[in-house]
């Protein structure tokens, strides 16, 4: 029989998981890019990789404290955004899409190649960079929480840090989008020529949006790797596609959408894959192997992306009238 309690417990854990926080943060960055400004950034995985490696390399190779390493990751992602933006922000939207996905791949290949193995650990990645971050943990050692939400002090610290960043990023986004700056950004999404004709430097605003969303992405990369090791193959284009799925689920031009989208996405995916895996084990799905069961969730994500775009482009939280979507 299926252990429903355990299944539900595992799914519920996703609500607080740092992975969910990382995806929420990355999706928030993408909301600024895609939902509010209309920039088709398909390289969010690249920003995340830069954040993660910027943090990991400056801690391990240069012995930086955690906050300096974090700033390095942010700084590198700003430079990356500038490099991407200069050639493409003057061009049509789909060029940005192709260049960002290519640039993210270039970044990942640089982290994967054996050429820089002493800094990047090549395909095996990096680990052992948590020390400085662990030291500032104010929580005394022990296990805290209840039910499925019982973690040790480091797990709690990572969760508090990750979700703290999500909340700060959400507040900044919310403030910005209610400001005249947000008005210009949304105007650019609707029609950049019209905004240009009103005397706004569209190129400059797009660049600001690209940088800001990219910084959120790089912070997401750090949150993503804090509980585990940095593995370059985590930062594949599929990571970006997952973040798009979350964004579309929650609503592209909303502040809460990316956060709730990330939670719903991971809880649902965890429940789904857990259920299918156990259903195969107990023989409910005789035509399927456990390995095949693991692939079902990817197929599901793909189908969900398609259905959302076609039938509910405003997402769960988007205003029905405001089909917040790039045309």
């Amino acid at each position, binding site marked *: 029989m299926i252990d429903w309690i355990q299944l539900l417990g595992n799914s519920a854990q996703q609500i607080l998981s740092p992975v969910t926080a990382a995806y929420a943060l990355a999706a928030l960055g993408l909301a600024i890019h895609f939902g509010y400004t209309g920039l088709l950034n398909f390289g969010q995985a690249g920003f995340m990789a830069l954040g993660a490696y910027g943090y990991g390399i400056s801690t391990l190779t240069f012995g930086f404290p955690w906050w300096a390493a974090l700033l390095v990751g942010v700084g590198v992602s700003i430079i990356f955004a500038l490099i991407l933006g200069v050639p493409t922000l003057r061009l049509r939207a789909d060029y940005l899409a192709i260049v960002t996905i290519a640039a993210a791949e270039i970044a990942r290949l*640089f982290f994967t190649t054996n050429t820089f193995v002493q800094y990047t650990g090549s395909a095996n990645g990096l680990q052992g960079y948590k020390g400085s971050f662990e030291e500032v943990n104010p929580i005394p050692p022990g296990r805290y929480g209840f039910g499925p939400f019982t973690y040790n002090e480091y797990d709690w610290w990572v969760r508090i840090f990750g979700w703290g960043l999500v909340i700060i990023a959400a507040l900044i986004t919310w403030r910005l989008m209610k400001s005249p700056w947000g008005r210009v950004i949304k105007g650019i999404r609707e029609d950049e020529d019209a905004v240009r004709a009103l005397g706004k430097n569209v190129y400059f605003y797009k660049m600001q949006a690209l940088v800001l969303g990219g910084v959120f992405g790089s912070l997401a990369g750090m949150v993503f790797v804090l509980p585990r090791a940095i593995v370059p193959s985590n930062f*594949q284009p599929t990571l970006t596609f997952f973040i798009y799925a979350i964004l579309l689920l929650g609503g592209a031009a909303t502040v809460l959408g990316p956060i709730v989208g990330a939670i719903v996405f991971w809880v649902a995916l965890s429940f789904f894959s857990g259920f299918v895996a156990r259903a195969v084990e107990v023989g409910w799905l005789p035509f399927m192997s456990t390995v095949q069961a693991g692939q079902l969730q990817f197929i599901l994500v793909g189908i969900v992306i398609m259905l959302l775009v076609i039938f509910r482009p405003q997402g769960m939280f988007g205003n029905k009238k405001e089909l917040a979507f790039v045309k």
Partner: protein
Amino acid sequence: MAHAATTPTSRRWPRLVATLLALLFSAVALMSAAPAHAASQVGIDENDYRVSGIVRLDGDPLEGIRITVEGPGQSAEAITNAEGRWAIGVPERDTYVVTLDESTLPEGIAVVDETGEDETPNSREATVGPSGSVVANFFIGEGERATTNVGGQILDRLFLGLNFGLLLALVAIGLSLVFGTTGLSNFAHAELVAFGAIMLLVLSVFLELPLPLAILIALLLSMAMGWANDAALWKPLRRRGVGLIPMMIVSIGLSLAGRYLYQFFIGGETRQLPYATTTALNTGFYGLSVIDIASMAIAIIVLLAVAFFLLRTRLGKATRAVSDNPALAAASGIDVDRVIRIVWVMAGGLAGLGGILWAYFRPGVSWDMGFQILLLTFAAVVLGGLGTAFGALIGSIIVGLFVEMSTLVIAADMKYVGALVVLIVVLLVRPQGILGRKERIG
């Protein structure tokens, strides 16, 4: 847990699956730190078999020596650890070429040729036996390093690049025609590529049909798949007036779903098509096999046929007209819907053929083989000029040559970087691409 095979041209995409799965599973089961790995162990978890060895000089282990293993389904590098050990996982029980990079050896030290006949003692073959693993060691001592003929190497790479460029062109032209006529940047084009190869695998290996018949049926199925893509999804979406960017995202969803559907049915391993790994077919001419030559010939013939179609036939001209200016084409009485339908059938067929040739080039059929060259295809299309069929051809050849030639100067695992950097530089200097027109990038 991970069931992805690594592949010869790159080990990036399959590792994606492996790690993404790892990521998901560990997310579900709460994250724990990943097991420790040294760069001396590459692809061990993902593969069933392994090639391994120890590098020692007079009994002392040598650290930091680069070992490359190439063969069916695998192309990977490892660096020896402090004990001089290395191991690389391989997906097949087959013969692999193991190469020791002599430049990583200490000064004055080389791989010693015991027989006196081997010109490249630093490279040897290793066959995975029934035990599932094989040890490949080298004799290291003082001596002269083997050097390969640079001119020959360049020509080798030139042919390889041309071969790759031609098959890429088949794929890219379909992508470009679809973009030209419908404005869709179709990420799921990658899955049309894999479809052709997978159908051939099913027909020729699983159903054991004769190869020519199997290829013919696979191509017909690919064309039907192209048609079905349009009829079942894209045409209704065009009717609904869905914008181009939402459509692009739909294609990403389709690509993701399609790719894992393939994996669902054929599994994660790399499988070979008939004759793909037969060494007897080697012609000895710049490392070209009969299959390489046939592949290039087929690609050239098909590309000429496409050119003839576009330039000389009425339907081809109508296709170009729709691609140039749909409004004007419709106003001049061209049946735009019919043109788009035919473009999709062509794109499906060309992608399927490209996929089959790609399966022989890599070599091997795997569920994500299309996605592996998707970015290079986009690079080729943008390089040549979005929406122009001949631009896609030129862009593909350039990308193909660039990818292969660049390995002469940069590490093999970075060979795609060059092509992608070129893509970005081209967008900086000439955003409309080589054959594109300036007004269209607006």
